[in-house]
C-alpha cells in the first residue's frame, strides 16, 4: 500500500507523497476543513440576529 520513497532526497512533503494523490489530497483537506468551522460560526452569528 505504502510506496517506497522514490525521489532523490527525502523530505517532509516527499514523505507525504506516498502514491496516488496522497500529498495533494492531504493539502486540500487541511485547507478546506477549517471552512466547516468558519461556516458554523457564521451560521451561529446569523441565527443570533
Amino acid at each position, binding site marked *: 500500500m505504502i510506496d517506497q520513497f*522514490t*525521489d*532523490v*532526497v527525502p*523530505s517532509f*512533503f*516527499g514523505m*507525504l*507523497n506516498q502514491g496516488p*494523490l*496522497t*500529498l*495533494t*489530497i492531504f*493539502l*486540500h483537506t487541511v*485547507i478546506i476543513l477549517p471552512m466547516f468551522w468558519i461556516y458554523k460560526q457564521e451560521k451561529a452569528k446569523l441565527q443570533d440576529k
Partner: protein
Amino acid sequence: MLTSIKTNSLTNEGQKLGMMYIRVAIVLFGAQLLMGLIAAIQFIVPGFLFEIFDFSVARMVHINALVVWMLYAMIGSVYLMLTDETEHNVVAIGLGKLAFWVLTAAVTVVVLVYIFIQVGAGSESTIWFINEGREYLEAPRWADIGIVVVVLIFYWNVFATYMKGKKTGIMTVMVANLMALAGLYLAGMFFTDNISIDQYWWWWVIHLWVEATWEVFVGTLAAYALVKIIDAKREIVEMWLWIEVLMLFGSGILGLGHHYFWIGTPEYWWEIGALFSSLEPVPLVAMFVHVLYDWGKEQGANGTKPAIKNGPAMAWLVTNAFGNFLGAGIWGFFHTLPQVNIYTHGSQFTAAHGHLAFFGAYATILIGMMYYGIQRAYGVERMRATFKSKMAIFLITFGVLGMTVALTIAGYEQVLVERAELGANWNAFFTAQDLPWYIQAQIWRTIMGVVTFIGFIYLVWDLITIGKEAKEAQV
C-alpha cells in the same frame, strides 16, 4: 491619433490619468499584434528579416508589448474606478502623472533598445542595460527598478485614497490584490547561475501574476463593471467576488506546482501541481455563470430601469467570461497533468493556450474597460455598439480563436511526432516542424493573425469615434 480620444467631460483628475494610461495601452496593443505577425510569418518564411529583425527580437517585443499594454490598461482601469469606489479624490495626482510620464519614457527607451540593439555581450552590463533574456521579464535591470518605483507611486495613490475614502468590498479586494501583484515583481529581479532556481522564481512572477493575482484583478474589474454597466446589486456582486477570490487563490497559489514538474524541482510537485491547477478552471466557470446570471437577472437591480448602459463594454465583458473559461480553463487543463505535460511541455500547445488565455482572460475585459472609460470621458449616458464595435469584437475574437485552433493542431503534430515518436532531440524537432500539416497549421495561424489585426483596426477606429458620435446623438 491618441489625442483624438477627448476627456472633456471628465472633471476627475484621476479618471483623466486613467485615460492617459489607456491611450498608451491601445498603441502598445497594436505593437504587440504587429510583432506577432512578423513572428508568425517567420515560421512559414524563415528567411523573412533574417539577421535583421530575427524571430527572437520580434517575439520578445510581442510578449513584452503584451504584458506592458495590459499593465497600462490595468493601471488605467484602477484610476478610472478609484474615485468612484472610494468617493475620494486621488491623493497625489501630480505624482501620479509624473509617474505616468516616467514610465512611458522608460518603456519607449526599453523598446527602442530591444529593436535596435537587440543583444549584447555575455556580461552583467547587458543584463542591466539591454535585456535580461528571461521570457516575459526581458526588461533590463535599470527598467525593473524604474518600474518598481513607478508602481510604488501608483500603489501609494490607490492605498492612501482607499484609506481616506469609503472602503467597499470591491476596493478592499483591489487594494489587497494589487499589493501582492506589485510585490511579486521583486521575485524576478535577480541573477543566478543556477537555471533551476532562476526558473523557480521566474514562475513565481509569471504564474502568480497570470494565474492568481491578475485573475483576481479581472474578477474585481468585472464586479465593478457589472455594478456600473447594468446596475447589478452590489451585495450580489461582492458575494461572488469573495467566492472568486477564495477559489482563484485556493487553486491558483499552489497550482504554481504545474510549472515545477520538469525544471529540476522535486517529484512531489507533480501531485500538488496536478490537482490544484486542475481546479483552476472552477472559479472561471463561477465567473462565467456570475456574469451571465447578472446580465439576465440583475439588470437594474438598484431600482433603475433595466438597461445595458454600455453595449460594447458589456459585449467584451461577456466575451471575457467565456474566453477566460475557454482559454485559461479548458486550454490550460488540456495539458496541466504531468502525465500529459511531459510530452506537451514547451510545444505549440503552450502557444495555443497562451494566445487564447491572454486574450480571453485579460485582453477582453481590458478592451471593455477602454470602452467604459470612453463613455465616461465623453459623458455619454448610454453608449450603444456601432457597426465598427461589432466588426472589432467579431474579427478579433474569431481571429484569436482561429489562431488557437491552428496552434493546437500544430501542437498535436509536434507532440506526437517530435516528442512521442522521435524523442525530442534536434532532428526530431525539425522533422516535426517540416510536417505538411504542421506547416499548414502555421499558415492558418498567420491568416488568423491578419484577421485579428483587421479587427484591431476596427477597434481603434471605433474607440476614436464612438464617444464623439454617441455624445452628438445624445444631444
